[in-house]
């Protein structure tokens, strides 16, 4: 058991460290690296979305990029039409959330089994890819925004100061916005998991039958979790498009969908920080391998996954926690408790 005194204090310290890192990073790294970190942070939000629905809702979606891509396109189309990124970000969150609500309604209320949930999310992602891919002609425009089919939409306006389109964020500010969004989403999900809704969601994941015998509707709870995941992925999509000022159908790529699953598995299912760590680590490795020609990066990624599944099936963070718990638990048996939401992964040991 990984219970040790001072856990809440540790959480505050970790949050302070994250904010400090957010502020300090631009002082220490080159612009190129800063841009890279900005990309990692945007992807970190995507990782959190799957880490949340899979780790805490028990919902394994193979199509988290569907919401990510929808968010990206919603942002691009809205910001071109509105001329201001403030509302566009809101739309990039809301539209995937609504889409997740509709899709989730059919999946959960139709009592579709977990396996088919994977198949359906995968299929929906493929459909979205193909639909958007086919919008090459000039007749496919939404307001002022031409969708551009497989060519995508170039020069998408990037973030501006809230409500002030004339003040476009520079790369450093873009890093603050993206990294800040990652920290914000992390904290928000953490709080959500402490709320009654979050605790009931974990209960549904633990034992659906018992939850319903207590009067909770598992379908509704799972739908709620799924919608939150869709909204978070949508935000990730907006952050990603802002980073590149560009969006194309590859945002719906299945390879990315698979990669998110690897991030979560490697970092640790059933934690929130694990998926983010997994995401940063693998993307960093990926970029390092990419700069030299010896290895194929997909091969390396596959090798990493196999190593983790075989040697650290719990993932990185839960394993580290167990080790830290062992080291600290011995001297302080009457330790303070962690909240339930923080330790479902070890609970399933």
């Amino acid at each position, binding site marked *: 058991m990984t219970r040790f005194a001072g856990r809440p204090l540790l959480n505050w310290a970790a949050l302070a460290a994250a904010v400090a890192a957010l502020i300090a990073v631009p002082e220490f790294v080159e612009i190129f690296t800063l841009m890279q970190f900005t990309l990692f942070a945007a992807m970190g939000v995507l990782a959190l979305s799957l880490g949340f629905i899979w780790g805490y809702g028990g919902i394994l979606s193979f199509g988290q990029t569907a919401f990510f891509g929808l968010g990206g396109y919603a942002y691009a189309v809205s910001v071109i039409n509105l001329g201001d990124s403030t509302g566009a970000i809101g739309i990039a969150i809301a539209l995937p959330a609504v889409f997740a609500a509709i899709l989730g309604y059919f999946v959960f209320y139709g009592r579709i089994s977990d396996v088919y949930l994977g198949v359906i999310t995968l299929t929906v992602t493929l459909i979205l890819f193909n639909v958007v891919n086919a919008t090459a002609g000039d007749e496919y425009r939404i307001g002022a925004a031409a969708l551009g089919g497989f060519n995508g939409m170039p020069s998408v306006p990037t973030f501006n100061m809230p409500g002030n389109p004339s003040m476009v964020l520079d790369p450093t500010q873009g890093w603050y916005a993206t990294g800040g969004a990652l920290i914000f989403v992390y904290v928000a999900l953490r709080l959500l998991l402490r709320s*009654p809704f979050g*605790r*009931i969601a*974990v*209960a549904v994941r*633990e*034992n659906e*039958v*018992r*939850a*319903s*015998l*207590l*009067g*909770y*509707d*598992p379908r509704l709870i799972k739908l709620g979790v799924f919608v939150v995941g869709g909204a978070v992925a949508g935000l990730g999509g907006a952050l990603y498009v802002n980073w590149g000022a560009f969006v194309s159908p590859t945002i719906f790529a299945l390879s990315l969908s698979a990669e998110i699953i690897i991030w979560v598995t490697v970092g640790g299912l059933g934690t929130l920080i694990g998926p983010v760590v997994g995401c940063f680590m693998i993307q960093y490795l990926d970029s390092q391998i990419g700069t030299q020609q010896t290895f194929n990066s997909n091969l390396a990624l596959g090798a990493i996954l196999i190593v983790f599944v075989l040697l650290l099936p719990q993932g990185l963070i839960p394993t580290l926690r167990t080790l830290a718990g062992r080291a600290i638990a011995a001297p302080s048996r009457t330790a303070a*408790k962690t909240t*339930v939401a923080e330790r*479902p992964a070890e*609970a*399933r040991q």
Partner: protein
Amino acid sequence: MTPPVPLLEARNLTMRFGGVVAVNNIDFTLREVELRCLIGPNGAGKSTFFKMLTGQLTPSAGTIAFRGTPIAGAASHEIARLGIGIKTQVPNVFNGLPVRENVWLAARRRNTPVQAKRLVDEILEKIALTPRADDLVGQLSHGQRQWVEIGTVLAGEPDLILLDEPAAGMTDEETVRTAEIIREINQTRALIVVEHDMQFIKMIAKTVTVFHQGQILMEDKIDAVMHDERVRDVYLGKKVAA
């Protein structure tokens, strides 16, 4: 004068699994705040009956009314919300969550956070698991998990409580304690208790319903049931022999 609406009323209730008729056309009525014991040999259909009452199975035929509201085939959470709680035969708890969280999840649905917390503390005392409140349920003994489930059912404050073999896996001491708790609950709530342990049944029972091959063999005061030839034949006699 119209007779009062019974708490629970099942009519012509039937459950078929392919060729097996697990529950065969039974009628069953329970008054408000009644305590009823269900006995019968293995496979008699007792658990199947409970599963139909709690929405885990949709009856093949027949009706169930809870205070006049039809519930046959309704979803489990809807039935739970009407006020039926169940401790299932196989422990059915949140193994990966702490004891306190298990009970809290049940208490929270009908209570404010402050009330829920108080209720949880009360129930943890009652089931004597306060010292283990923060341990994961999966780490407890079988008997203790039974207690957690009973505590969870109590925390939901249902008006009808179904207990499927509550004393199984408990020590003699715990069995006596369970009987005490059942009598205490019965001051304000109705219960149906399935149990094979006749000593235990004697501690709590007034009226007993005997299931046999999916049907109700008889329904009477405990003494009459204990001395009935047919019941001895199909159930009690075999138990003594076994």
